[in-house]
């Protein structure tokens, strides 16, 4: 029996979909059978980030409405032999096309066949959020080092405390810019973790290649030397129970002589 994990945040644009795609891909790279479920009905993106958008024939609403069987709607990622699947969201309807019981039934049907069922939650805390947490065993709350994102994450933690899941939630701090954290312009990792009072699952640095790779439909974890990709791989290893030390994100302090050299640099 697999574990179902909802990836949520409250706030939009913090990287829920990117994190879902990358954590799912990282787990598949470790040989786990993973099903990614896109519950952002009406504004689906997970298929695009994974480069599977042209392969969608049926979606989750077709399954609920009985127009297709669950197995017909699953889109297989050919890059991972039989390990990574996507259940796409519908695009021509909205969040109310699904209710909690229907969402839970689908997740429960997927769990026996996969090691992990990752649920990509829509932004907001309305029906879409309720559907996403309905079938989840645990949650990963994605936030960024911005006050607004942390505020919304705090709200989500509160909602999850009211409707407790089977296992304790974790946070992932995404889009970290190391130099800003060094200079104290944004909350640092310990501050955020302490403020939210939820254990930290991992950190991911902000990197141009995250956007570049997702535009090409291939998650950044596939790049072995990318720091953001490493962040996601570490998260996957921790989910599997490994003890992985937190990545060092301190920027190298410029030495005295490099500072002197920079005075003479043009532009």
């Amino acid at each position, binding site marked *: 029996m697999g574990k179902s994990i909802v990836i949520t945040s409250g706030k939009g644009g913090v990287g829920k979909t990117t994190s879902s795609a990358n954590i799912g891909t990282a787990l598949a790279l470790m040989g786990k059978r993973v099903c990614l479920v896109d519950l952002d009905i*009406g*504004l689906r993106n997970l298929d*695009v980030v994974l480069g599977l*958008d*042209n*392969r969608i*024939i049926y979606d989750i609403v077709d399954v609920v409405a009985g127009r297709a069987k669950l197995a017909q709607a699953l889109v297989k990622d050919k890059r991972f032999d039989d390990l990574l699947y996507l259940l796409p969201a519908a*695009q*021509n309807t909205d969040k109310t096309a699904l209710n909690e019981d229907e969402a839970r039934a689908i997740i429960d049907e997927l769990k026996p066949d996969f090691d992990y069922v990752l649920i990509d939650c829509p932004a907001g805390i309305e029906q879409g959020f309720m559907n996403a947490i309905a079938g989840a065993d645990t949650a990963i709350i994605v936030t960024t080092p911005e006050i607004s994102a942390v505020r919304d994450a705090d709200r989500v933690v509160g909602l999850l405390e009211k409707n407790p899941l089977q296992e304790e939630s974790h946070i992932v701090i995404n889009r970290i810019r190391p130099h800003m954290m060094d200079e104290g312009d944004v909350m640092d990792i310990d501050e955020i973790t302490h403020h939210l009072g939820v254990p930290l699952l991992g950190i991911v640095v902000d990197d141009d290649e995250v956007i570049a790779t997702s535009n090409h439909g291939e998650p950044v974890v596939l790049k072995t030397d990318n720091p953001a990709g490493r962040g996601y791989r570490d998260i996957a290893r921790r989910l599997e129970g490994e003890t992985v030390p937190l990545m060092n994100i301190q920027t190298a302090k410029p030495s005295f002589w490099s500072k002197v050299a920079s005075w003479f640099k043009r532009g």
Partner: protein
Amino acid sequence: MQAVVLRGNQDGYQLAIDQSADFEAVKTGLRELLDNLSADAEATVKISFDVLTGDRLLSADQNRQLEAIVSEYAGFSIHKITANVMTIEEAFYLKEQDNVHLLTQTIRNGQRVEMKGDVLFLGTINEGGNLTTSGNLYLLGDVMGVVHAGAPSFEDKLIIGDLHQAQQVRIGEQINIIEADQLAADHKTVAYVNDLHTVTYGHLHELKEINPKLYHQIGG
């Protein structure tokens, strides 16, 4: 004039119903006629009538009443009931099936446009957009979404246009996922379903071999 008149020609026997006659008069007229006929006709020959209602559409209930009357006579039956006219609804349906519809809008992500009959499409279909019709699709605009001809299950339909950027090409029940570099950027691409029931691509100059029926329909 009598409400029901018996006529015979090379197509067989017809019962012509006066379109201005009251329906009750039609029923009694029909009974009288059949009474007379059954007295004359030889019992061994069964006669099947075409009922012509002229410029009047009978309701389904009225049709049943006429059929019930005829079925009382062992030697007679009704082959079919036809009128010279049709409902506006039926006329629109026929018109829709025959026309080539002109469509110029942009079909965006998540939008689905459903048409009947052949469609000449001059707009743009963005990624995630879907254009579906029961007939053929002639595409002059940019197609980056899903196009579906012959919905739901007519595999003799065609899609003509530049399909190299499309996500999926669907004809009838067949679906083809377009891979990068699968098709050339060519406005004269013809997508069709072959004898093996898979979506195949040809060129406009092969169209006569691909689908001779289309030429027949145009009259070329």
